[in-house]
């Protein structure tokens, strides 16, 4: 019955329920144009349906070979690589936080009040904000040689501009009242920082740093592909020789470790908030 009412209304007053045909035609044309552009891009990238089907066939075989996962008798080596991955993430995040802190202070509007300086500095950080850690790692491995050291520096380089931006925003958003309160009690500048600013800023900054640690643990797992140590190296090696049962073992272990760190870090962040 209600269904009929809807159809009836559509027959009596179609314009009340439908957009005018000019607009519908324009929308349809735009949609067709967008789809055509996407198809053109796919053709330009040589994404042939044949290659797609063949690839899915291979992928299916790989996934089949992943079960049951096997350590290949090298679980000790893999665990060591996992520890190295975490170490890279931790050291990289710590270095990034230490360097980002002064940069963040300089970037805060409340500290450097000159708008031109502030704009130039922020833009300077923005330039480097988008560069992924892997791009840094690739060149740093060439500079420092194979090993986790290049990975640590790459993670730090990728994080510094992002953390600095978040730190300066946290500083700008801190409430001036406690600071004024401490100052009006006659405290010296250092005590104003310690008792007025730090209690507001430290929890926010710590929680952001923890958030970056989680991200870095994910990123650190792939830096090994370009030779920067950690679990990525072990993974890359086994994918190259199509040892997918061992690949599955490493991925599962790594995902569990990522989930553990995420849970731990989230618990810590909730306590700070």
């Amino acid at each position: 019955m209600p269904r009929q009412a809807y159809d009836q209304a559509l027959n009596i007053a179609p314009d009340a329920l439908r957009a005018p045909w000019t607009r519908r035609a324009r929308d349809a044309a735009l949609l067709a144009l967008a789809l055509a552009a996407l198809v053109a891009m796919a053709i330009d990238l040589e994404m042939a349906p044949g290659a797609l089907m063949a690839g899915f066939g291979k992928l299916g075989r790989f996934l089949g070979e992943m079960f049951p996962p096997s350590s290949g008798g090298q679980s000790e080596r893999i665990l060591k690589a996992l520890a190295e991955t975490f170490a890279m993430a931790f050291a990289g995040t710590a270095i990034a936080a230490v360097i980002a802190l002064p940069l963040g202070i300089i970037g805060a509007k409340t500290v450097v009040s000159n708008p031109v300086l502030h704009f130039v500095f922020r833009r300077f950080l923005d330039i480097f904000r988008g560069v992924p850690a892997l791009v840094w790692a690739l060149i740093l491995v060439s500079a420092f040689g194979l090993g986790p050291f290049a990975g640590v520096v790459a993670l730090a380089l990728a994080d510094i501009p992002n953390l600095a931006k978040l730190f300066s925003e946290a500083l700008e958003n801190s409430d001036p009242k406690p600071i004024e309160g401490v100052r009006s009690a006659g405290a010296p500048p250092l005590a104003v920082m310690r008792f007025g600013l730090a209690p507001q800023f430290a929890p926010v900054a710590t929680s952001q740093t923890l958030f970056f640690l989680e991200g870095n643990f994910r990123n650190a797992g792939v830096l090994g592909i370009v030779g920067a140590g950690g679990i990525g190296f072990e993974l890359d090696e086994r994918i190259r020789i199509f040892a997918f049962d061992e690949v599955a073992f490493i991925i599962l272990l790594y995902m569990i470790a990522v989930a553990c760190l995420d849970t731990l870090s989230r618990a810590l962040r909730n306590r700070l908030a």
Partner: protein
Amino acid sequence: MSIQHPAVEAFERERRRLLIRQRTQAAVGLAIFSVLLLVSFQRSQFFGSEIGGDPLGRMADFLQRMNPGLQADLLLEDRQTRGSLHSWFYALPIWLRAAWQTVEMAILATAMGSFLALGASFLTAQNLMPFAPVRFVVRRILEAIRTLPDLIMALILVAAFGVGPLAGVLTLTISTMGSLGKLFAEINEEIDPRQMEALQAAGAGSLKKIRYGVMPQVLPNYASYALIRLEGNLAGAAALGIVGAGGIGLELQRAITYTEFDTYLAILMIIIAMIFLIDLFSEAVRHRLIGLEKA
């Protein structure tokens, strides 16, 4: 001078107890942090001898090699003259073509990933998918995708689909579906139910209810999230090229293989410019969308 009052004494005792507890907690936290930090530095060979004794010297040497050696009077000379812009950016047309491929990869992956995320979000939203097991399964799949780092997925897909943009597009599509699927589902759960009820009362079927009751409410938010994701996908696509998934990353890899550090710097500048332009574009569109939403 001291005030002897039981209430004051109790207060002081309580305060001291709290202070001691706080300080112990801080000390334990600091100790754990220091141990972790030391072990991390040790494990990651931060002070190891393998860095080659003189890391700062190597860094300086390396920066020196990144310097393209531009000379003011030779800037506009041809490719053969060392010190001209042309000899620094000697393969600019090839790099721009590769950069455009990377942009295409990011756009295609964002479009396809958003489309898949749209479907997934309707299957996981509590108010749109009444059948709980379906919600549970789709949610776990999305979670698994989000936990797996993109580049690991890319390694496996490059092994399956071969070196080239196809593997990169598929990787980014899947990872976009994982992250946007969750965000879209959250948007879906916050819609105003009255519009759907009105359509239901008018006798519209489920598809019509979604088309006219849900879509108009959620599309602006979807688009804004998808655009943010496009920015991320562009940086991701640039990195994926390094593991063989096509685009500008392949050129970076090539520059490193031939140890042309000045070329690396040139390509890095192209990547930074590309990311910067897409950010500007996406920000402008998002601000317009938010404006439309408010109007």
